[in-house]
Structure formats: C-alpha cells, structure tokens
C-alpha cells in the first residue's frame, strides 16, 4: 500500500472511531435535547459526506446539497401526507428521487466548472425552493408538512442515524479505494488529462453527482421523519453554506473531514448559542482562515502535527 492508500485507511479507521464515540454517547447523555443535537449533526454529517464526494474528491462545487436534502424530505413527506405511505417505503423513494434528479442535473452541468457550476446549481436550488414554497396546495408551502415519526423513541432514531452514517462511510471508503477513487480525483485534478488517459469523464462525473445527491436525499428523508416537520427552509442557501463550512473546517477531500467538521461545528454551535449566538461568525471566520492559509482543514493540521511528533 502506498502512502495515499495508507492515509485513506487511517482516515477511515479514525472515522469509525469517531462514530463509535457517537454510538456510545447516549450512555453518558440522556438529555433528549442534546441527543437531538447529535442527531441533527449526524444529518449534517451525511450531507457533508455527500458534498465532499462531489466537491472534495471530484472537484464539482455544487451549491445544491441542501436542496437535495429538501427534495428527499419532501418526497417522503408528500408520500406520507397525501397517500399515507410508510417511511420504510418513503425513505427509499427519497433516495431514488434525489438520485434521479441529481443524475439529470449532473448531466446538464457536465461541461461547467468553477463559478459557472456554482451559479447553475445555485439557481437550481433557489428555483426548487421557491417552487416548493409557492405550491401551497400541494406542499402547504411555508407552513410545512407534518409527517409521522420513524420510531417511537428518540434513541431508536439516534441509532438509525448512526447505522446509516456507518453504512455511508463504509460505502464511501469502498468506492474511493477502488478505481473509482482514482478516476474521480483525476477528474478533479485535470479533466482534460483524465480523458486523454482514457477515463470516462462523463460517466464518472454523473456517478459522483448521483451518489452525492442520493446521500443528501437520504439525509433529508431521515431528518423529515425525525423532526416530523418538513419545510422549504431545509433547502435554504444558508444551509448549504453551513455544510460547506463544515467540510472545509473539517478538511475537504478527506474521509474524516466532513464527519468531524459536522459534529464539531453543529455541537459547538449549539453550545455557543447559549453564550450569545456568535457561532456563525466564528465558523465563517474559521472557514476564511482555513481556506486562505490552510486548505486541508483541521484534519490536515492534525496530520502535520502528528508527522512532526513522529518524525
């Protein structure tokens, strides 16, 4: 195994460790509010992982992760609200819907890069949000939809999230370890060269888009059945901004960055909320500093200091 494969394996093991900590946290915390906070951070962690696959590994900086979470939430929500379909069918439907729409969007934006891609996905996200918000008759607009819960107990919901995150991390690791990982990163680094070496750029870009949006849809659907309320606010641009902050702070382009970033940012945001609501200012500042001076995020900093101590 060469160093990059070793690094990825290390990141995967660390993320498993982190998830293990999250899994045993309920033993120490029985306050339902903080359990809820951890659940929401897991929701963001899933969104972050999906966006990181698209942006960090494939180089496509989409502005639509929150939008697809919203699409996922509304798919299962509308199915439950209008046709009384159970979450066990609604959630898979959300994955399919988000993935399918994502695949189409991915094909549409194939030739776009950088700010053009960002602007197109941003427009798409805003259009969807406005469309859902305005379709009052069907979606109840800004009032939101009430949907049934997934489980009776909050704890069961908690472990459902842990399980899903675990599966997602595992799937991501398997994917990135395979030739797909090589191809996606090659596309990120130099699309023209990748094509010249024989990488099917169209296929793999679309795959990345589809997987990313499907993960977002799944996250949104699960969140819907946890909070039991679905509203267009899920798809706000500021929510996407939060996801981007989390990934950049944690370490973009790594397996552990999104997970660590999501947990760190959301939990401390809740803790800071009591201290006077400066959390977003702090995080935005942190993102700027990291982007400006150290793009590998906190995980990169950790790796550097580890290397110094072991060298």
């Amino acid at each position: 195994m060469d160093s990059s494969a070793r690094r990825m394996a290390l990141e995967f093991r660390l993320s498993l460790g982190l998830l293990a900590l999250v899994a045993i946290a309920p033993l120490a915390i029985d306050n339902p509010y903080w359990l809820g906070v951890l659940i929401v951070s897991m929701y963001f962690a899933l969104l972050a992982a999906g966006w990181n696959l698209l942006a960090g590994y494939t180089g496509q900086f989409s502005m639509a992760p929150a939008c697809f979470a919203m699409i996922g939430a509304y798919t299962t929500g509308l199915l439950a609200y209008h046709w009384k379909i159970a979450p066990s069918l609604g959630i898979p439907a959300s994955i399919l819907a988000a993935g399918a729409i994502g695949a189409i969007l991915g094909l549409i934006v194939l030739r776009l890069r950088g700010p053009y891609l960002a602007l197109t996905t941003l427009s798409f996200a805003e259009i969807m949000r406005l469309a859902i918000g305005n379709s009052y008759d069907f979606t109840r607009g800004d009032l939101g939809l009430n949907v049934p819960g997934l489980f009776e107990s909050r704890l069961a919901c908690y472990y459902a999230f842990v399980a899903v995150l675990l599966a997602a991390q595992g799937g991501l690791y398997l994917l990135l370890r395979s030739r797909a990982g090589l191809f996606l990163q090659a596309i990120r680094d130099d699309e023209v060269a990748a094509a010249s070496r024989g990488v099917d750029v169209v296929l793999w870009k679309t795959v990345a888009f589809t997987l990313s949006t499907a993960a977002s849809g799944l996250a949104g659907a699960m969140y819907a059945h946890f909070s039991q309320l679905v509203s267009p606010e899920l798809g706000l641009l500021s929510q996407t901004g939060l996801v981007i902050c989390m990934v950049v702070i944690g370490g973009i382009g790594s397996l552990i960055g999104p997970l660590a970033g999501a947990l760190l940012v959301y939990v401390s945001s809740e803790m800071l909320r009591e201290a006077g609501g400066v959390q977003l200012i702090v995080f935005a500042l942190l993102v700027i500093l990291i982007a400006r001076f150290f793009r590998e995020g906190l995980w990169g900093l950790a790796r550097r200091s580890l290397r110094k101590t072991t060298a």
Partner: protein
Amino acid sequence: MLNVDLFINGLIIGLFYALMAVGLTLIFGILKVVNFAHGEFYMVGAYTYTLAAFKLGFDPWLALPLALAAGAFAGWLTERTLMRPLYAGYSSWGLMRDEYAVVVTFALSLLLINLVDKVVGPYPQRGPGLVDIPRMALGPIMLSGQKLAATGMSIAMIAGLALFLRYSLWGRQIQAVAQNRLGASLAGIDTARASSLVFALSGALAALAGALLAPIINASPDVGAFPAIKSYVIVVLGGMGSMPGSIAASLALGVLESFGAVYISYDYRDTFGLAILMLVLIFRPQGLFGERGREV
C-alpha cells in the same frame, strides 16, 4: 398605458440591477472569479447610509457618499486580504482557484451577514429618502421624487464608470488587465492595483445601490441576497466580462421581471431570471454577448 408604465419601471429596476452587476462584471473580467459576497457590499451601503442618517444625524446627501466610501473600502479590503492568492500564487489551494474563490467569498458573505446581525440587530431599518417630492408626472407615467433622484444618480454613476474605463489611464489599464493579465504586467501595468481598484469600484457601486434603495427596500442583514442573485444572473447573461452586455442584460431583466410579475406570475417573478440563467449556462456557456466558451 399599463405597458408603458411597466416598461419604464422595468428599466428603472434594471438600472439598479446594473449598478450591482457592472461591478461584478468588472471583477469577473479581471480575476475570472465570481464574488459571492457581492450582495454584502450592497448591504454595507444600505446600512451605512441608514445608520449615518439616523444614528449620526447626517444629512441624506452626505450619508450617500459615505455609503459609497464604505462600499469602496469593503471591496478594497476584500481584495487585499482574500483575493491576492488568486494571482500571487502563494495560496495553498494552488490550482483550484475557482473553488477557492467560491468558498472564501461564500464564507465572507456568511461572516458579514451574521456580524451585522449581531452588532446592529436583525430588524429591518428604513433609510431616509433623498428627496421629499412625492409623485411627479414625467410624460405618461408617475414617479416618486425619490425614484427619480435614484434613477438620475444611477445613470450618472454608470456613465461615469464607462467614461472612466474608456478614457482615463487607470481605466484603460483595467481593460488591459482584463484582456490579458500577463501581457499587461509585462507592459509594466500594476495588476495588483488594478484588481484592488476594480474591487473598490464594484463595492462602491453595490453600496450605492443599497443606499439608494434603502428607503424602499429596508436594510436588514440579508438584504443583499436577492440583489446578489440577480446580479449573478445578469453577469452570465451579459457574457461574463462584457460591460455593455451586462448593462443590456440588466435592463432586459428588469423589464422581463416587470412584465412577468403582472402577466405570468407574481409569486414566481424571482425565478424567471434564475431559469434563464440555467438555460443560458447550459446551452450557451459564453452568455448572450460573450465570446469565450467555458469548455475546458
């Protein structure tokens, strides 16, 4: 009569859009990036104007240039601290300059919005009007004095900018850098100063828009979001770097939204521009007026 009214109002709105979009177009022309914090320059202008007038007791006609200055300063500072890496080459993002710009300006936008929210408070503040004349008849239509004054100022600023770019030394330097950065620097032009100037100008224009519209669209922390999205649409439609293109696109968008709100759908009036943006980027990546494609 309604149509004429809609048309004129559309043009007026288009002028304000132009104030926003023209600066963004300049930035794109010089640095080839989109500034996602552009809306916050608008917000800075709106707040400076409003607070200067109400908290500091400035006369609105003094508060206006103050808002301009604030916007210019904000733009200059942004370029100086955050945008240098894009061409000085010492950023750790290296090749992913587009993505760096997206992340950093997005975060800046988040920072400014929340900073203002914290420091000034989230409640909308209404800016004072410049002119007290209520409604006047101008040919076939009725306009408020405020709107008239604002329109006049916008036209003056845009024309001034066009003249500056065309005839002044610095203006021509900016055009040179936009066409060919390397060549311009080899010819002895200070490209860093050109970039700073462009950012300052774009900040000033956006701030002016915010200040002029403060009496109509109250200043609130996220007031800049909508104007920003409109300007992104316009920059792309106008050809990402073409000044005349973006002015034309601004006016066109204003008129389109004005008619669309009445004849198609009021609720969806904001989506027309977005939908057009998507369609244009998909089918004609170089915009309606641009020449360069965005293929790799």
